C-alpha cells in the first residue's frame, strides 16, 4: 500500500481541465513531465532536449526519450481532469491504524456470517413447511414497530407535540386528499420541527407530492456547537451537506431517476448524529447512490439551533406540495423494510415464484425471512452483522484518497512524437532504457519496476552520484558538481571527484541508506568547520567551492517558518494528515479564481492547531502559491527543479517583519519567556536568544536588546492600547497574566531576534 501510494509522486504534476483544451495534448504533457522529472531527479540529465530531437550534447536520442516515455504512457488517466480535486486513477490509502481497524471488523463480519450460515443450514428441515404455510397464508409483511419513534398519517393535525411539531408562519394549515386519506398541503409556509436531542439513529420515511421543481430541505439540523447537517433535494438531485465548527463542509450528492413533480413519491433517509457519511437515501424504495462532491466553502449560518423536516426557519427552503404518511424510526431500517414502506412487498414477490424456479439467492432470502419470523437470536445476529458492516463502511469512507500510477491493460507502448508534437506520431516504441549509460536491463516485464531497478542498479554510474551531489548541495550551498541537474557534457566537472565517488559508493554500499550519507556529511571535519573566517576568506572563495570553511546558508522558506514556530513553542508536531491552510493575506486566490464550484477557488483559513503545522503540510496551490514561502524562493512547483534560488530581498524582510505568522511567533516566544523569567527581562532575553540562535548571547548584544526593551517598555506604558493591539495578533491566546506592556515590549525584542540574519541561516 505504501509503495502504491508513493507512485503518486508521478501524478503530482499540474493537471489541466480547461474547457476547450485537447485531452491528448495534455496527457502527453504529463508523460513528458514524468520523463523530464526522472531525468532531473535520478540521472541528472537534461533529457528534455530529446523530446523534440536527438540531444545535441549528450548521448540521448529522441528514440531513447520516447522509450523512456513508454514506461509512463500507459496510465489509466484522462488528459483533462481534476476540476473537483483528485484526478483518476486514485486509490483509497488507509492509514496504518485504519488498516488494523478494518481487518478487525472484517474478521468479526466473517465470524458473524459463518454463524448466520450455520443457523440457516440448521433451519433447512423446517423450510418447506414454512413456505407452504406462507404461500397459503400470505401475511401482510410489515415493518417492525419495535423502535418506532413517531408516526403521522396526517388524517388530522393532532400530532405528538413532543416529537413532531407543525410550524406555520401564518394562517391555518390545510388538509387535502392525499396518498392515504388526507395529506398536508405545504404552500411554502409550513415545516416540521423535531423537538429534543436524538443521539440514536433515525430513519425517516415520507410520501411527497411536489408541485414545483424548486429545491427544498428534507432534513436539517444545527447544534449550538456549530455542527450542521442539511439534506436537500432539487428535482432528482439529493444533496447532503455536513459542517463542523473545526472542519470544512463535506458534500455528498446522488441523483434519483424519475423524480417528477405532481406525482406521489416515496422518500426515506436515515441520519446518525455525528456520522453524516452513514446517511443513506432511498427514492421509491431504491437506494440513491451518494458520492462525495466538492466541498462548499461558504460559512454556514448555524443559528438558531434545532432539528427540522421539510424546510426550516430562516434560510432553509421549504417543501411545496403535499406531504403524507410521515414515519420516524429510532433505528436504521433495512433496504427491504424501506421497500415495504414504499409500497413494495419483497417477500410476497419471492413466494409467488414456483419453488423450482427460485434462484439460490431467492431461496436464501426466503429462508432468512423465515428465521426472522421465528428466531429472536437470528434477528439479533443480523443486527450485529449490520452494525459491523456499517462500521466498516464508515471507516472505509474515511480512508484518504490519493492519486496513483495505475497501468492500463496490455503491454506499455508509445509513439515517438515528431518534433515533440503530441499529435505527430512517429514509430511505435516499447519501453526501454538508454543502455549506453548502463547496459543491464533487469529480467521481467517492461514496466516501471524494471525502470526503477535499472535506476538503482549498483552499477548505474549516475543515480548515486546525482543523489549524493544534491545532498551535498543541501549542506554546502553548491554541489560538488555545481550543475546538480546536469551531469552531461555541458555540466560542470566535479570540484572534488574523489569525494563524489566516495559518497556515491557509500550510498550504494549502505544499500541506499540516505541517513548514513547524511551522517557522514554532517559528521565530517569539513562540515564542522567554522564559518567565522573573516572577510578575506569569503572574498577569496565566495561560493566556498574549496570547502575551506563551514557552510553558512540562508534557511529555506519552509525551514524559516518552521523554526519560528518551533522556537516560539507554537509548532504542532503531529505527523501526516490533511494539508492545512495557515495565515495568508485575504483575497489572493479569489482574485485569480473562477467563481465556480471547482476545488480550491476560495482560501478559507484554518484555525487552531492547523495554523501551526510544519510548512511541509501547507496547502500549495500552484496558480497562487503561499506568498510568504514564495518570497523565500519556494518554487511554484509547476515543473521539477533540482535547485532553488537563494535570494536576499527586501520583500523577505517585509515577510519576517509583518507576516502575522512571525509576529505571533514573536509574541508566543515572549509569552513563554516572561512566564518563565517574568521578573528578570534580562534572563528572558538571554533565553529567547539562545532558543532562536542556538548560541549564548554576548554581553554587548544583550545590552543592545536591553536598550530596545527599555525603550519599548516605556513606549507601551505610555500607550497601553497599542500594547493591547500588538499582543493579540494571531489566533493563539497569550497566557502571561502580568502587565500587557511588558509582553508587548518583550514581543518586539523577540521579533528583533527572529529577524536577525543569524536566525535564518545555518549556524
Amino acid at each position, binding site marked *: 500500500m505504501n509503495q502504491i501510494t508513493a507512485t503518486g509522486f508521478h501524478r503530482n504534476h499540474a493537471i489541466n481541465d*480547461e474547457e*476547450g*483544451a485537447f485531452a491528448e495534448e495534455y496527457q502527453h*504533457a504529463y508523460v513528458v513531465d514524468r520523463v523530464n522529472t526522472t531525468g*532531473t531527479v535520478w540521472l541528472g540529465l*537534461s533529457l*528534455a*532536449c530529446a523530446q523534440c530531437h536527438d540531444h545535441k550534447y549528450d548521448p540521448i536520442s529522441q528514440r531513447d526519450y520516447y522509450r523512456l516515455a513508454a514506461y509512463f504512457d500507459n496510465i489509466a488517466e484522462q488528459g483533462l481532469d481534476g476540476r473537483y480535486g483528485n484526478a483518476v486513477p486514485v486509490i483509497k490509502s488507509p492509514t496504518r491504524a485504519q488498516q488494523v481497524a478494518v481487518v478487525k471488523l472484517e474478521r468479526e463480519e466473517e465470524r458473524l456470517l459463518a454463524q448466520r450460515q450455520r443457523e440457516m443450514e440448521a433451519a433447512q428441515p423446517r423450510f418447506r413447511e414454512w413456505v407452504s404455510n406462507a404461500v397459503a397464508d400470505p401475511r401482510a409483511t410489515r415493518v417492525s414497530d419495535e423502535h418506532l419513534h413517531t408516526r403521522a398519517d396526517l388524517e388530522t393535525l393532532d400530532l405528538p407535540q413532543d416529537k413532531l411539531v407543525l410550524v406555520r408562519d401564518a394562517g391555518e394549515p390545510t388538509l387535502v386528499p392525499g396518498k392515504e386519506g388526507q395529506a398536508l398541503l405545504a404552500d411554502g409556509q409550513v415545516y416540521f420541527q423535531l423537538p429534543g436531542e436524538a443521539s440514536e439513529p433515525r430513519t425517516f420515511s415520507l410520501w411527497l407530492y411536489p408541485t414545483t421543481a424548486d429545491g427544498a430541505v428534507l432534513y436539517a439540523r444545527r447544534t449550538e456547537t456549530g455542527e450542521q447537517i442539511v439534506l436537500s433535494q432539487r428535482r432528482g438531485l439529493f444533496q447532503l451537506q455536513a459542517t463542523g465548527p473545526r472542519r470544512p463542509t463535506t458534500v455528498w450528492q446522488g441523483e434519483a431517476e424519475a423524480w417528477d413533480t405532481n406525482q406521489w413519491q416515496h422518500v426515506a433517509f436515515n441520519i446518525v448524529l455525528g456520522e453524516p457519511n452513514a446517511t443513506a437515501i432511498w427514492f421509491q424504495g431504491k437506494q440513491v447512490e451518494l458520492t462525495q462532491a466538492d466541498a462548499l466553502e461558504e460559512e454556514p449560518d448555524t443559528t438558531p439551533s434545532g432539528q427540522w423536516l421539510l424546510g426550516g426557519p430562516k434560510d432553509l427552503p421549504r417543501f411545496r406540495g403535499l406531504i403524507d404518511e410521515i414515519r420516524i424510526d429510532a433505528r436504521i431500517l433495512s433496504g427491504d423494510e424501506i421497500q415495504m414502506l414504499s409500497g413494495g412487498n419483497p417477500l410476497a414477490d419471492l413466494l409467488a415464484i414456483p419453488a423450482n424456479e427460485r434462484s439460490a439467492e431467492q431461496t436464501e432470502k426466503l429462508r432468512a425471512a423465515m428465521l426472522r419470523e421465528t428466531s429472536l437470536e437470528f434477528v439479533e445476529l443480523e443486527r450485529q452483522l449490520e452494525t459491523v458492516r456499517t462500521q466498516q463502511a464508515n471507516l472505509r469512507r474515511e480512508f484518504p484518497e490519493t492519486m496513483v500510477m495505475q497501468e492500463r491493460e496490455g503491454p506499455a507502448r508509445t509513439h515517438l512524437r515528431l518534433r515533440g508534437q503530441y499529435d505527430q506520431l512517429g514509430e511505435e516504441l516499447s519501453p526501454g532504457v538508454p543502455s549506453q549509460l548502463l547496459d543491464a536491463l533487469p529480467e521481467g516485464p517492461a514496466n516501471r519496476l524494471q525502470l526503477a531497478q535499472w535506476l538503482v542498479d549498483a552499477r548505474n554510474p549516475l543515480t548515486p552520484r546525482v543523489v549524493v551531489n544534491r545532498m551535498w548541495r543541501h549542506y554546502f550551498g553548491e554541489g560538488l558538481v555545481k*550543475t546538480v541537474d*546536469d551531469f552531461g557534457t555541458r*555540466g560542470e566537472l566535479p570540484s572534488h571527484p574523489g569525494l563524489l565517488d566516495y559518497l556515491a559508493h557509500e550510498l550504494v554500499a549502505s544499500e541506499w541508506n540516505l541517513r548514513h550519507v547524511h551522517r557522514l556529511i554532517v559528521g565530517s571535519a569539513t562540515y564542522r568547520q567554522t564559518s*567565522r*573566517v*573573516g*572577510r578575506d*576568506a*569569503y*572574498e577569496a572563495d*565566495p561560493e566556498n567551492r574549496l570547502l575551506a570553511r563551514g557552510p*553558512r546558508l*540562508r534557511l529555506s522558506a519552509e525551514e524559516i517558518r518552521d523554526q519560528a514556530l518551533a522556537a516560539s513553542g507554537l509548532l504542532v508536531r503531529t505527523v501526516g494528515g490533511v494539508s492545512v491552510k495557515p495565515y495568508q493575506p485575504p*483575497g489572493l486566490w479569489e*482574485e485569480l479564481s473562477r467563481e465556480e464550484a471547482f476545488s480550491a477557488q476560495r482560501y478559507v483559513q484554518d484555525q487552531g492547531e492547523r495554523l501551526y503545522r510544519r510548512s511541509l503540510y501547507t496547502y500549495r496551490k*500552484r*496558480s*497562487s502559491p503561499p506568498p510568504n514561502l*514564495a518570497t523565500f524562493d519556494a518554487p*511554484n512547483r509547476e515543473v521539477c*527543479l533540482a535547485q532553488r*534560488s537563494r*535570494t*536576499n*530581498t*527586501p*520583500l*523577505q*524582510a*517585509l515577510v519576517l517583519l*509583518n*507576516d502575522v505568522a512571525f*509576529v505571533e511567533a514573536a509574541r508566543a516566544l515572549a509569552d513563554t519567556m516572561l512566564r518563565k523569567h517574568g521578573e528578570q527581562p534580562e534572563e528572558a532575553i538571554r533565553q529567547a536568544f539562545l532558543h532562536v540562535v542556538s548560541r549564548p548571547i*554576548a554581553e554587548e548584544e544583550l545590552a*543592545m*536588546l536591553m536598550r*530596545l526593551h527599555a*525603550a*519599548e517598555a516605556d*513606549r507601551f506604558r505610555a500607550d497601553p492600547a*497599542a*500594547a493591547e*493591539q*500588538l499582543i*493579540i*495578533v494571531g489566533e493563539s491566546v497569550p497566557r502571561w497574566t502580568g502587565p500587557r506592556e511588558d509582553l508587548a515590549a518583550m514581543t*518586539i525584542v523577540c521579533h*528583533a531576534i527572529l*529577524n*536577525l*540574519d543569524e536566525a535564518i*541561516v545555518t549556524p
Partner: protein
Amino acid sequence: MHPELMQYALQQTRRSFLGSAGLSLGALALHSLSPRHAVASEGVPDSLPHFPAKVKRVIYLCQSGAPSQHDLFDYKPALTEWHGKELPESIHQGQRLTTMTAEQASLPLVQSKFAFQQHGQAGMWFSELVPQQAKLANRLCMIRSMHTDAVNHDPALTMLLSGHQLPGRPSLGSWLSYGLGSEAENLPAFVVLVSQGSSKLNRQPLFDRLWSSGFLSSEHQGVRFRGQGDPVLYLNNPPGVSAEDRRRMLDTVAALNQRQADEVGDPEIASRVAQYEMAYQMQMSIPELTDFSNEPESVFAAYGDDVRKPGSYAANCLLARRLAERGVRFIQLFHRGWDQHEQLPTQLPLQCRDTDQPSAALVSDLARLALLEDTLVVWGGEFGRTAYCQGTLTADNYGRDHHSRAFTIWLAGAGVKPGYLHGETDELGYNVASNPVHVHDLNATLLHLMGIDHRRFTYRFQSRDYRLTDIHGNLVEPILA
C-alpha cells in the same frame, strides 16, 4: 558578447560585488533588485543593452480572456453578406478548433452587432464600443495580423508571456528584470496589477506563473500590487507597532547584524542589512505611491469614475502611470473577463466600459507628462475570437470561440510608428492575409525596443541556452519608428 561570458557576468554574486567595497547601503539594496545595474557598474564590457534602447519601460495592458477583434478593431464588411452563412471550408481548411466548437454541427459566420467607423490618418477602424481609443488613432500602432500557436487560455497566455505553451519558463517581465534590472528607487523592476472585468460569464482564471521567473533567480518574479489590503503584501506594520517602534527595532537588528558581519566576514550579512533598510524605505514610500489624493481633478476626470475604486482597471492604469514615473521597468496589468463565448452583445460592452476610457487616458496622460517618449504601452489579449458563432446565432445574440489564427493588438509610445496600421486579415477576418506577426515576433520586437537582441539574450538552464523567443521570432521592422 559571448553568451557564456554574459551569463558569467550576470551570475556574479553580490559577494564579489561587495568586494569592491566603499558602496553605500542604498547602492547595495538597489543592487538586489537590479543585478544588471550592478554588473554594469562593474564595467563588464558589451553588457546589456546590446544597442541603445528606445524604450525604458513597458506598460502591458493584458486583456485576459481574449477580446473579440471582430467587434472592436478588425472590421469586415464582407461579413454583412456572409452573416448566417456557413464558414467556407476554403477558409477553415481543417484547422484545429477548440473542443467547444469542434463538434458544433454548424459554424455560421457572424457580423458584428456594433457600428464601425474609420479614424485617424491611417484609417483605423474602431467600433462604437471603444470611442476613446478611437480618438487616439493617430497615436496607436495597430497590428491586425497577430497569431499564436495555442487555442486555449492557459497555454496561450503562458505562450504570450513566456514564449512557450507549457509552464516553467520565465515571463517577459522577469527576463527584463534579469537583463536590465531596475531603475526604480525602492520599487521592484516588475510589477503586476490584476483587475476583475464586469462581465461575469466565463471569467478565466489567472496563474502565478504568468509573472513567474521560471528558472531565473526568483528575485525577478513579478511583484503583485493590490487594490485592497496592503498594496504590497506584508507592507504594513503589525497592529500596535508604530513607525518609531519599527525604526528602533530595525536599528537594533542592523547593529546586531553588523556585529555579526564584522565577526563572521560573510558579505551576505551586510546585504541583509541593506535589504531591511530598503524594506523600511518601501514601507515609507509605497503608501505615497498608491495614494492618488495629490492627483489633479482633471486626471480623475480623464480616467473616469472607476479610478476612485482601488483595484479597478482604471485605478490600475493610473497606478501604472505612477509606477512608470518612478522608473518601474515592466508594469503588467491583467484585466479579466474577455472570454465571450456566449452573450457577446451584452457582455463585451461591459468589458469595454471598464477599459476603453482608462486605456486611452493612460496613453494621453503619459504623453502629457512626456513619459510616452520612453514608455511603450501594449494593449491586447492572448489570441482572438472566431468569425463564426459559438452556440446558436439569433437576431440579438451570438458568441465567439477562441481563435489563434488572427487577432488585433495595439502599441503606443516610444519606438513604434504612431498612427500606423500593420497587417491584414482575409475578407472574413479568419486567417492573416498579409504581414503576419507571431507572438514570438512581437516579443522579439519588444526586446529590441528595450535594446536587446532576442537571439543573444539567453540563460543556460539544464545545459540549454534558453531564450524568451525559443528558437523563433523575427523583428517586425515596419512598425519601428
